[in-house]
């Protein structure tokens, strides 16, 4: 299955804004990396909308 959460790390400023707005605690900031627990992610797109540098793309599962 395709990944729901994808991040362009060349844009990311690792501010963890996405972690703050994720409603299901699927995201973690580990130093400069955003990690997504794909099992928890519900592909709601909140992180994509909130990201200040448009670094996130959410793909809804088909």
């Amino acid at each position, binding site marked *: 299955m395709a990944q729901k959460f994808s991040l362009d790390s060349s844009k990311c400023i690792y*501010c*963890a*804004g996405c*972690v*703050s707005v994720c409603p299901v*605690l699927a995201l973690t900031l580990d*130093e400069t990396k955003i990690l997504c627990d794909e099992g928890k992610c519900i592909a709601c797109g909140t992180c994509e909308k909130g*990201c200040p540098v448009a670094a996130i793309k959410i793909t809804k599962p088909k």
Partner: protein
Amino acid sequence: MRIQTEYDAIVLGAGPGGSTFGKKAAAAGMKVLVLDKKKEIGTPVRCGEGIAEHSEADLGIKVLPNAVASTIEGARVFSPNGKTIRLKTPNTRGYVLERKLFDKHLAMDAVRAGAHVLPHTLAISLLKKDGKPAGVKAVHMGEEIEFRAPLVVSAEGMEAKIAREAGFDAKATLYDVDTCFEYEMAGVPCQPYIDLYFSSRLAPRGYVWVFPKGKDVANVGIGIGGNAGQNPKALLDQFIHEHPELFSKAQPVEYKGGIISVGAPINEFVKDNFLVIGTAAHQVDPIHGGGIGLAIQAGNMAAESAVEAFKKGDYSKKNMAAYEDKWRKQVGPKLAKRLMLRKVLEKLSDDDWNHVVGSINEADLDKVLAGDYKPVVAKVLITRPTLLKVLGVLMG
């Protein structure tokens, strides 16, 4: 360095709130550990770095000279068509900080008081004993460690992951956050004022700020409503493009940004064996998104309650409720008024902004900041009665 794992309290996050709690609790004899997920406390900076000078006296802190980038005399508000109100009173004096140093100094003070501090340590889950919080599991230098304490304090900032795992409703919605982007720029001609540019076009539901960090260096940032559906970086770039008088020679030396609560504080700060302080509890000013002073204040209040609980050997919610009661009495009402103001200001069009800024003066702005809205709204309504629908709520 040998790491100890048994404490009276474990604090998550060595920001201003966490370090303040650590310092005060350790000074009172508690064995405290302050964890921070970053290898370097205070990074990455996610804010405009401003703090009022009177905060030092209010909070009982001393900002060290090398943490002060510049001294501020007041604030200026710019309307979309360039009208300005300048506000300069003893209350508007302040500093633009070097957060990386400011936060580190507070952590050092916590160490001096006897607290343990451990950077580069990511808390990954809450530990429980008999169904109650009893510590955290964390990763430090590749090793999973169980830190145990009868009290866990979340000073986690916006992420608030362990607080949410503990059952606190600290989730941030897009409506109640601002999404922010900021350049630190050199080559910006600066005056000793923090400048705020309002525009529903360039900063929907927020504003652009220029906070000087020296004669020709400034934090140039933007915060917009999280649900505005726009990219703050793109809007800030447009603002910079439209203001060559400020930015024709400016170049960025650092990129910063983040998401900040501009809503109400969370509905509960205390549970058995768990406290939430500062930005993790959404204790943030809804107008400017500032939370440094509020976090320090909450850190002090929470530590008072924690020390009482420590003396009794009982960290139940009941025993620590004084922190929340005191906060909701002393701080809550003021922030609630500011939230009401935010919800009104976000409805103003650019034309409304031009009118409002054009029809009020410095004394009026001072009143607004002090929470005395009524006389100022009345003045604005004389020349634009149609704004009653938007501003009327502030007349109550």
